């Protein structure tokens, strides 16, 4: 294996990891709070992609993609609010049923996109300033992917700041640690749930804009990323940002490096085997939340 190939695959792994991270952050946060998984989360990616497409119709030119990011964030967050308010909140006591109901939502959203935009998908042209690449020795790193890694890092930093230093962050951490006790202290648990759900959906919408830079936006563009993102959540540990980051990085690099030796379908199977083996060693995930609760 040549050094150039290794470097390329490491970079591809990091790029993949940044997308997994953006897709998984929202899932992991809501899972930590409510123990439910939103199966329609992948459609937030899709929604973000289509919103980017629509934004670029209105605001063509250099700054289109910059405008698209907040639009996609707000749009996906709004849809997330509807899903949370109408479904997840009511079903939260039955995690498996939440899974199924949100899968139903996912099907409806996908078919809706197919009817509105067609099954083939729409193209979002990356702006000039994102074309080209940065040469690193013999390897050229595409600017688009560098930009995506940058966005993921900024989102991660902002999220860490919010969770650590803001009032809502304090409340989120409190509910994450002990929901009942937090509720007993007068925290409006339902509002915290709603805020986190919207925030997570918004981040997924943002991730959708990034996907639109890489390829055409199709009705099932989210599906290819959401299942690895689920594995990231399984591996990361309950609602831990650090755990989610580590898991996203490990799985992204694993998939990219495995592809040096085998093709992508085998690499996917190996990734699943890797996750199953990982939970043999650490069933509680990368970062375990210490708790005395028996039925955590």
């Amino acid at each position: 294996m040549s050094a150039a190939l290794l470097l390329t695959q490491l970079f591809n792994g990091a790029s993949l990891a940044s997308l997994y991270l953006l897709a998984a952050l929202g899932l992991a946060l809501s899972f930590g709070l409510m123990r439910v998984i939103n199966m329609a989360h992948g459609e937030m990616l899709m929604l973000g992609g289509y919103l980017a497409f629509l934004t670029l119709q209105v605001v063509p030119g250099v700054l289109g993609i910059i405008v698209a990011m907040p639009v996609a964030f707000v749009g996906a967050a709004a849809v997330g609010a509807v899903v949370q308010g109408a479904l997840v909140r009511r079903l939260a006591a039955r995690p498996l049923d939440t899974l199924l109901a949100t899968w139903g939502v996912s099907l409806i959203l996908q078919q809706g996109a197919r009817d509105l935009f067609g099954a083939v998908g729409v193209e979002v042209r990356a702006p000039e300033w994102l074309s080209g690449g940065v040469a690193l020795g013999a390897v050229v790193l595409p600017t688009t992917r560098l930009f995506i890694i940058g966005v993921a890092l900024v989102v991660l930093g902002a999220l860490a700041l919010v969770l650590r230093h803001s009032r809502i962050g304090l409340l989120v951490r409190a509910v994450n640690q002990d929901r009942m006790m937090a509720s007993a202290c007068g925290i409006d648990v339902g509002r915290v749930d709603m805020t986190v759900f919207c925030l997570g959906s918004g981040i997924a919408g943002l991730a959708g804009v990034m996907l639109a830079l890489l390829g055409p936006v199709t009705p099932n563009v989210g599906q290819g990323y959401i299942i690895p993102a689920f594995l990231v959540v399984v591996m990361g540990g309950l609602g831990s940002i650090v755990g989610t980051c580590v898991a996203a990085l490990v799985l992204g690099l694993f998939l990219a490096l495995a592809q040096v030796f085998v093709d992508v379908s085998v690499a996917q199977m190996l990734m699943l085997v890797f996750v199953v083996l990982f939970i043999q060693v650490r069933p509680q995930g990368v970062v375990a939340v210490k708790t005395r609760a028996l039925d955590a």
Partner: protein
Amino acid sequence: MRKALCRAGPWALLAAGAAMPLVLSDYSTNLLARFLALGIVALGMVLTWGHGGILSLGQGVFFGLGGYAVAMHIKLTDLAAGEIPDFMVWSGRTALPLWWAPFQSGLFAVAAALVVPALVGAGFAWAVFHRRVSGTYFSLITQALALAFATLIISRQDVTGGFNGLTNFTTLFGFSFSDPAFAHGLYWLTLGCLVLAYAGLRWLLGSRFGMLLRAGRDGENRVRFLGYDPVPFKVVAFGVAAMLSGLGGALFTLHAGVISPAMIGVVPSIEMVVWVAIGGRLSLPGAIVGALVVNLARDAISSVFPAAWPYAMGLAFVLAVTLFPQGLAGLRKARA
């Protein structure tokens, strides 16, 4: 009088079911036979999901293992010595892969259609549950399994038939698929398997095993405190459901004349859950009815408005889960 009717009801239904090939057209009989095969898959999910609280989003994998096992045998039966199936030739292969060879024996193929899904399912369940990983994680991992399995089959075109799957069946055990009498025989075989699966699961759910499975679903730690290990119960339940999936897949493949990745991936796997969600996750008859009703509806809707089916199924999921968690079986109970 009423009690006597209740007791005679299932037998009358069975007799009506057995008489169907004589009444219906060949096409309708084939359709019904397919749906009965899917009913076997649904029965297995009552055991795992309804009574075990284990939601598998990857049941299509076991369905596919069963289906591919018999399909591989059929592809090999018509060949002269030294020949290999046509799709392998097209992909440029010259020799049969080693793991295809045992499928020349029909007995081996039938055994594999049952045993391989059961072992894979049980092993997979054990790997996850013995480390006390929670139910939601298990569902997510099974979904990843369905994706990985379908992708793997598509990409290995030379040995699996790829996206098109395995099709063009001519004979099985010397009988021709185009012979209507053979089709009727297969129908009765499917009905027989369904009845056996039903009776077996009824017995299993009524036994101590069923009680402890439900106890583990409702309070895993309490079961542990009572001195039982809930893991073997879950593993066996999942293995049995996987085996029934394999059986259903094998029979379905015979009726449909094809098995392909489009029937075993992520979306088909979740569709299997919707049958049971509609029929009633706790009820064995409900699961059979659910599989029949949903698939008939699918057949009717998608032949008229193909684009409407995903909406219908999505809504069915949302409504069944939020408003009628016990499905059709629950409605019947509420009325009685």
